[in-house]
């Protein structure tokens, strides 16, 4: 009996917490305990599993356990089976570990909110679904988790659906997120049908093993199946063209944004692509599309973030942009670099959201960062941890983890056989924008003149998560050093049994060092620009916004390059028009007619009720005579 046989407990603990909280509710104290402790136990279990895995890896570097057969239809019998390998281990670690600290933070953040136990029930449902997603051995079980995270994301975005002020907006944001990701989910299930048809099973290891023998590289089946899988990933991970839901999803509470819309759920697409990387290798065209989608999204989102006023929307666009980096890495075949960036991103982006949440709480739910300012002195701990996270996001060289995870992606974008100069250039330009918008956020929020009183000082349960994630944002990068820094690579060695290293093109030696210096310089340049424009001479930005062209550019970027308007005109309005036209069609007329007839008959017979008793008696006699006549003569 090893610890591997206990992995079923990892998702079961949050599920149990969810069920208890959903059925019985409970006081705030009970809900806080039930909401956090099971996930904490799961996290301990994951750490124990990871330690065991590192010391004694299971045979074949993967452990699978079939719990039971879900159902059987003919030859198709998907199993409720768990699969543990380096990839799922990394995801498990992030979900439970970061998840635990976010839940701990929530016990204080949500303390005064209505629906406290409902919040923790939803959060545990989410953690459970996400754990099922990454532990599933069968694609169908993965899909169950996939839909579960979509559902809990919907529930949590609309958590404040009763708030008098913007309840409509919150509910709208929740519906939008659900519907837009549904497009991707539909693509994913179609992709699963294709896989089922070709392989006769949805067992992931089996498919990955059989795929090279079944599909010719570049064959149309491979292309279609991977395109559909990619569709699912694009929807869940808020990449072009299904990215519009993520900025609106910020309507949910800050811990939700931290856990679901930054650290874990939105990276489910990255997980799916890394999990099925064998299939994508068989469809080079689709892999190129992945890289292009990633590059396009990271540029678009990075520039949109430059013009946001809402601190959480800045972070939302930055999440899109960072996942764009991961997609770029997946597209150029640098699988483990993508997973590494996922992990580091989960640390620092969760930290930034939690920091932003603390600031928003202190500012009495003010989201506009231009109304904050000068918080550095008042909230030093939040400021310093936020600064660490911001440094990691901007990939400040050497001192932050973000540098060690983002730099390889830029390097592989250039140097892998699937990379190109243009992909690198996009990532490079966006890196400058990233650095500028990150430090714009830091300077506007924490520097300058204070505009509003601090209403609330974070307590211990907010501080601990900030400090833990802040430390991780600084040091977690050291487990994967580039070649020019001593080539210390335990992370990619760990992933190597599963994810092959990127195939390198023949690039001149020494280029990597120069590119690293270029990335480092551009990150620092971004900080300098942000300092120049938002601390020293904010007038310049103001003047730029006053000009016609400047205002137009600003509005364009603030609206996220106008995708919402585009979709409203292209899709929403035609569908609404069609629905309105369809409302009065032939079929409806028939049923409307039935209703009208009944109404008319009712009015007609209603006249018979005139109150004259003798009339009623006569009616009875008449009816009896008619019935008797019918019986006698028919």
């Amino acid at each position: 009996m090893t610890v591997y046989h206990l992995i079923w407990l990892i998702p079961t603990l949050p599920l149990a917490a969810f069920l208890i909280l959903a059925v019985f509710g409970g006081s705030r104290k009970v809900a806080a305990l039930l909401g956090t402790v099971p996930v904490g136990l799961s996290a301990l279990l994951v750490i124990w599993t990871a330690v065991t895995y590192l010391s004694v890896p299971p045979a074949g570097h993967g452990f699978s356990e079939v719990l039971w057969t879900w159902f059987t239809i003919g030859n198709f019998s998907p199993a409720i089976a768990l699969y543990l390998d380096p990839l799922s281990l990394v995801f498990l670690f992030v979900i439970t570990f970061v998840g635990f600290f976010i839940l701990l933070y929530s016990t204080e953040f949500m303390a005064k909110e209505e629906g406290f136990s409902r919040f923790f029930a939803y959060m545990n449902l989410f953690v459970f679904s996400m754990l099922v997603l990454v532990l599933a051995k069968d694609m169908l079980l993965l899909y169950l988790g996939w839909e579960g995270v979509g559902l809990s994301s919907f529930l949590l975005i609309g958590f404040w659906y009763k708030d008098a002020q913007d309840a409509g907006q919150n509910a709208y944001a929740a519906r939008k997120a659900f519907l837009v990701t549904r497009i991707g989910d539909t693509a994913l299930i179609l992709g699963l049908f294709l896989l089922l048809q070709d392989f006769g099973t949805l067992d992931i290891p089996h498919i990955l093993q059989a795929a090279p023998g079944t599909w010719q590289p570049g064959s149309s089946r491979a292309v279609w199946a991977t395109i559909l899988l990619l569709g699912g990933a694009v929807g869940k991970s808020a990449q072009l063209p299904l990215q519009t839901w993520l900025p609106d999803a910020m309507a949910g509470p800050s811990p939700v944004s931290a856990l679901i819309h930054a650290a874990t759920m939105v990276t489910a697409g990255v997980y799916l692509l890394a999990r099925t990387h064998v299939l994508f290798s068989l469809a080079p065209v689709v892999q190129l599309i992945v890289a292009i989608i990633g590059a396009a999204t990271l540029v678009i989102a990075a520039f949109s973030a430059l013009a946001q006023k809402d601190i959480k929307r800045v972070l939302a666009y930055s999440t899109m942009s960072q996942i764009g980096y991961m997609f770029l890495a997946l597209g150029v075949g640098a699988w483990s670099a993508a997973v590494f960036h996922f992990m580091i991103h989960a640390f620092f982006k969760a930290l930034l959201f939690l920091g932003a949440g603390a600031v928003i709480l202190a500012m009495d739910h003010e989201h506009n960062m231009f109304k904050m300012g000068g918080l550095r002195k008042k909230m030093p701990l939040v400021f310093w941890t936020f600064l660490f996270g911001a440094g990691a996001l901007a990939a400040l060289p050497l001192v932050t983890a973000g540098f060690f995870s983002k730099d390889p992606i830029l390097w592989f974008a250039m140097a892998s056989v699937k990379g190109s100069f243009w992909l690198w250039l996009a990532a490079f330009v966006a890196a400058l924008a990233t650095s500028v918008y990150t430090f714009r956020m830091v300077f506007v929020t924490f520097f300058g003149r204070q505009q509003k009183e601090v209403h609330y000082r974070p307590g211990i349960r907010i501080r601990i998560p900030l400090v833990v994630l802040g430390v991780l944002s600084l040091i977690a990068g050291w487990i994967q050093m580039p070649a020019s820094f001593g080539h210390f690579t335990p992370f990619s060695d760990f992933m190597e049994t599963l994810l092959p290293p990127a195939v390198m093109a023949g690039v001149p030696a020494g280029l990597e060092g120069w590119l690293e210096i270029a990335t480092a310089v551009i990150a620092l340049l971004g900080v300098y620009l942000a300092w120049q424009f938002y601390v020293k001479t904010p007038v310049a930005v103001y003047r730029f916004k006053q000009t016609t062209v400047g205002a137009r550019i600003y509005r364009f970027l603030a609206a996220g390059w106008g995708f919402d308007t585009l979709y409203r005109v292209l899709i929403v309005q035609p569908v609404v028009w069609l629905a309105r036209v369809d409302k009065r069609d032939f079929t409806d007329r028939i049923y409307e007619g039935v209703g009208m007839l009944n109404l008319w008959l009712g009015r007609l017979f209603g006249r018979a009720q005139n109150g004259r008793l003798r009339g009623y008696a006569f009616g009875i006699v008449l009816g009896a005579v008619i019935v008797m006549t019918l019986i006698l003569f028919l």
Partner: protein
Amino acid sequence: MSAVPLHMGLLLAGILFLLGLVGVLTRRNVLFMLMSIEIMVNAAGLAFVVGASRWMQADGQVMFLFILAMAAAEVSVGLALIVQMHRQHKSVDINVLERLRD
């Protein structure tokens, strides 16, 4: 025993029933309506008794006892209602009760 022929008995029952029916439909006084109903009920009872004597079965006689019991119950409720009606509306004219429609 010279029995009354079946058709004569049924004819009498039918005539009584029709008399009662016409009474119910034409009288405005509730008391008379109630009496007409009694006539109809007894006409039905007569039909049972005639049938019973024709086929020499006790069922018809038993049925008549039931009808008597039912009629007694009905009359007690009906008279109580009429007393109430007279107290509230100062009238036993059935047309006065039209206002109960609404």
